[in-house]
C-alpha cells in the first residue's frame, strides 16, 4: 500500500505538472535578473524596459493602421497630489510604480490595487520619483532622504532600510535603481550643497555596500569641483560587462571660479565595471559646466553600422544641446552635433567635446543663452527606432538669461537663470549625421518621454495633456486622447493574454491603453 501511495503521489505530480505548467503562471518566482537583458513581451522589468535604454518594444499588435481605434483599457487613480514621474515595472502581471514616499502594486490586467507602501514622513527632497527596481522577489525603492528600502514584492512589507547618503548633508534620491546580476546600483541628487556625487553598488540580499565610485573629490578639496550627481538610471552591456552612467553638473552650479579646469567627472558619460566599480573610460560632454547641464540623460546603447562599419555605440541627446555618438567599447567620439539652438560653445575639440565660451558664463549683467537651465532635453526618455535609424527625443528649444555675481557666493546655486522663451518639440534625429528628419511641436514646453514600437509607432504626450501616437516614419499624429493632465512620464508597453497595452502616467493617474477586444 505504501508503494501504491507513493505511486499515486508521483502520478498526481505528473498530471499536475502537465496540466498547469504550460501556462507558466503558477510558478511565479519574482524576477530572475538574467531576463532583464532580453525581457519577454509580458514584462517591463527595469526602468528603461531593458538594459539598452532604447525604450523600443518589439510588440506589433498596435499598428499605424489600427491605432486610431486605441481606447482606454483601465485607469488607476493614485489619489495623490504628486505628479507621476515614474516608469512602472511589470513582472508576473503586476505593475509597480511610485511617487515620492509611495509605492503601488497594481494588477496589470485590470488596474486594481494589490497593495500600497507608504514611507514615513521625512524632511527629504520631494521633487519627484522615477520608480522601483526588482531582484527575485524583492523591490528596491529610493527615498527623499536618501535611503534605499527593500520591499517584499508580494505584499509591500519592508525587508530592510539602509542609508545611501546623509540627507542632512544635502543628498536625496529619486532614481530607479539598476539591477545587474547581484548588484543594485543606486545614485543620488543634491545640487543645493557643494557635495560629491557617487554611484553605489548594494548587495540585493544583505543591503551591504559592495563598492562606491565617487564622481568628484571629497567636499572641501581646494580648487576642486564638487557635484556630479547620479540621479538617473544608467544602462548596461552584458557582453562588455560595463554599466554606462551619466553624471550631473559641478557645484557651485552657476559659477566656476572656485573650480578651475574641466571638473572631471562631472557632466560626463562614464563606463564602470559593475563588479568592482572600476572606471573603464569617461567622456565629458560639458567640460567646466556653468549652466546646470547634467549629462544624466539616458546613455542609449545601439549596435548598428556607423559610416559603413558595424559598431557598438552609445548615444545621448544631452541637456547641453548636443547629440553625441560614442564607441562604447572605448568611449571614443564618433559624432557631436547640436539638435537645436545652442550658443554657448566655441565649437567642438578634437575629442568631440564642445568647447565652452568663457563669454557665455553667467555674469552680473546677464548672458542670453540657449538652451535654458532645464536644457534642450532632460530626464525624459528618448527612444531609438532600429528600423528607421531615428533617435527620437523630447526636445526643449529654449533661451534664458543667466546671472551670477560675487554676492551670490560660491555655494550651491550661486546664481540664477530666468527663462525667456521655450517650445516643446519631438525631434527625430538621423543617428549617422545628426540631421533632424522630422519635428513635431507639442506646445510651449514638454515633460513627456518617448516610446517606439516595431510596428512603426511613437508614443508620447503634449503639454495640454493629450497622449499622442505618431507615425515614426514622418512624425504625423495618428491617434490622441485628452487625459486632463500633463504627461510627466515616459510611456511603456507590454503584452498580456495576447493584448498589447501602452501605459502612460498623466498627472496622478495611470492610464492603460489597448485596442478594443473586437479589433485584436
Amino acid at each position: 500500500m505504501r508503494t501504491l501511495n507513493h505511486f499515486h503521489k508521483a502520478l498526481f505530480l505528473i498530471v499536475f505538472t502537465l496540466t498547469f505548467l504550460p501556462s507558466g503562471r503558477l510558478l511565479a518566482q519574482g524576477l530572475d535578473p538574467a531576463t532583464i537583458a532580453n525581457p519577454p513581451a509580458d514584462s517591463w522589468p527595469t526602468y528603461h524596459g531593458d538594459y539598452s535604454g532604447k525604450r523600443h518594444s518589439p510588440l506589433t499588435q498596435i499598428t499605424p493602421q489600427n491605432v486610431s481605434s486605441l481606447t482606454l483599457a483601465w485607469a488607476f487613480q493614485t489619489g495623490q497630489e504628486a505628479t507621476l514621474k515614474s516608469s512602472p515595472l511589470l513582472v508576473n502581471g503586476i505593475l509597480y510604480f511610485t511617487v515620492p514616499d509611495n509605492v503601488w502594486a497594481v494588477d496589470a490586467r485590470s488596474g486594481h490595487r494589490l497593495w500600497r507602501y507608504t514611507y514615513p514622513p521625512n524632511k527629504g527632497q520631494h521633487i519627484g520619483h522615477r520608480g522601483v527596481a526588482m531582484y527575485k522577489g524583492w523591490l528596491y525603492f529610493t527615498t527623499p532622504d536618501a535611503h534605499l528600502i527593500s520591499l517584499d514584492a508580494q505584499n509591500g512589507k519592508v525587508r530592510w532600510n539602509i542609508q545611501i547618503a546623509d540627507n542632512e548633508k544635502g543628498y536625496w534620491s529619486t532614481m530607479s535603481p539598476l539591477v545587474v546580476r547581484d548588484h543594485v546600483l543606486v545614485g543620488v541628487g543634491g545640487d543645493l550643497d557643494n557635495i560629491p556625487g557617487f554611484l553605489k553598488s548594494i548587495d540585493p540580499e544583505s543591503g551591504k555596500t559592495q563598492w562606491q565610485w565617487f564622481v568628484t573629490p571629497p567636499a572641501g578639496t581646494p580648487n576642486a569641483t564638487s557635484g556630479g550627481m547620479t540621479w538617473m538610471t544608467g544602462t548596461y552591456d552584458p557582453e562588455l560587462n560595463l554599466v554606462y552612467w551619466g553624471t550631473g553638473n559641478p557645484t557651485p552650479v552657476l559659477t566656476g571660479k572656485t573650480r578651475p579646469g574641466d571638473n572631471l567627472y562631472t557632466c560626463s558619460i562614464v563606463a564602470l565595471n559593475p563588479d568592482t566599480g572600476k572606471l573603464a573610460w569617461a567622456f565629458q560632454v560639458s567640460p567646466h559646466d556653468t549652466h546646470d547641464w547634467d549629462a544624466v540623460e539616458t546613455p542609449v546603447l545601439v549596435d548598428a553600422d556607423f559610416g559603413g562599419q558595424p559598431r557598438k555605440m552609445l548615444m545621448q541627446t544631452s541637456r547641453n544641446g548636443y547629440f553625441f555618438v560614442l564607441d562604447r567599447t572605448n568611449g571614443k567620439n564618433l559624432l557631436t552635433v547640436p539638435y537645436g539652438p545652442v550658443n554657448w560653445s566655441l565649437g567642438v575639440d578634437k575629442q568631440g567635446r564642445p568647447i565652452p565660451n568663457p563669454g557665455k558664463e553667467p555674469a552680473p549683467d546677464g548672458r542670453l543663452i540657449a538652451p535654458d537651465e532645464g536644457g534642450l532635453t532632460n530626464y525624459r526618455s528618448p527612444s531609438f527606432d532600429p528600423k528607421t535609424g531615428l533617435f527620437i527625443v523630447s526636445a526643449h528649444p529654449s533661451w534664458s538669461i543667466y546671472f551670477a555675481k560675487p554676492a551670490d557666493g560660491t555655494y550651491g546655486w550661486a546664481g540664477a537663470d530666468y527663462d525667456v522663451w521655450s517650445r516643446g518639440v519631438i525631434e527625430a534625429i538621423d543617428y549617422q549625421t545628426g540631421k533632424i528628419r522630422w519635428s513635431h511641436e507639442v506646445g510651449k514646453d514638454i515633460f513627456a518621454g518617448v516610446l517606439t514600437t516595431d510596428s512603426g509607432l511613437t508614443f508620447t504626450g503634449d503639454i495640454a495633456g493629450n497622449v499622442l501616437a505618431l507615425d515614426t516614419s514622418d512624425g504625423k499624429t495618428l491617434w490622441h486622447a485628452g487625459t486632463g493632465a500633463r504627461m510627466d512620464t515616459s510611456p511603456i508597453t507590454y503584452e498580456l493574454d495576447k493584448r498589447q497595452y501602452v501605459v502612460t502616467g498623466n498627472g496622478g493617474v495611470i492610464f492603460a491603453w489597448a485596442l478594443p477586444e473586437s479589433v485584436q
Partner: protein
Amino acid sequence: MAPGLRMKALITGVVLTTFPFLAAQTKTSKPVSQWATPAVVERGKSLFGQNCSFCHGREGFGGETGPNLMDSDLVTSDVRGNKIGPVVRNGRPENGMPAFKLPPQQIIELAAFLHAQKKKSESHPGGRRGVSVSDLQTGNVEAGKQYFNGAGACSSCHSPTGDLAGVARRYRGLELEKRMLYPKNATATVAVTLPSGQTVSGKLSYQDEFTIGLTDESGWYQSWPANSIKYAISAPAEAHVELLGKYTDDDVHNLMAYLQTLR
C-alpha cells in the same frame, strides 16, 4: 494637533481664502512676530525644504528654474499666507509651477518661513541674491537706440513715442528686460473661417494640435476641432523669437539702456 486647534486652523483657512479683506485687517492687529513663532518658522522651513527648495533654493533665493522669492512683491505684500496661499494651492501653470494642496496651517507655516527668511536677507544685504535694477545698467543708450532703429528693426513694430512711451515707468529691471526679449503674455488673435464661409475672430484663448479656442468680442469662448476649420493666427510678438539667436549680450544691454530712457 488637538481637534479644537485643527478646527480653528481650518476656519482661519476658509476665512482667509473666502474673505481676503479680513486677512488684510489683521495686518495692523497682528505683527509677523506674533504668528510666525520660531516653531512655526521651523515647520515652514521643513515644508519648504521638501516641496519648494528644488526650484526656489533652500533659502528661497532661487534655484533651478524657480525665481528668487526674497525680492518678490507677493512675499512682501503677504499677510499670514493670504497672498502666498493661493499661489501655492493653485500653482502657476503658465510658469511651470505645480499646485500644492497644502492645508491652511501649512500655508501659514510656509509664509512664516518666507517672512523670516526675507527679514534675514534684508539684515545681510551683502549676501542677498537676485537681480537688482543696478545690475542691468552696463549698456550704452546711444548704441541701444541705433540697434532699435537699425539692426534690431524694433522700430518696424514699436515707437518710443507710441506703444513704448513711458515703458520704463511701467516696468523696471529684470521684468523690463524679460518683456523686451519676449513678452510671454502678449495677446494673439485668430481669424476662423467655418465650413459655411462664416468668419469668427477674437483673442486666441486655447490652442493645441486638435482644438482652437477663441474669446469673441462679446466675451464668449468658442472652440472648434482644428481640422474642421481654416484659421489664421496673428501673433506679432513672435517676431521677438527671431532676434534671440541674433543678439549679442552687448545688444541686449544697450537696448535695455535705451528702453530705460523711455520714462
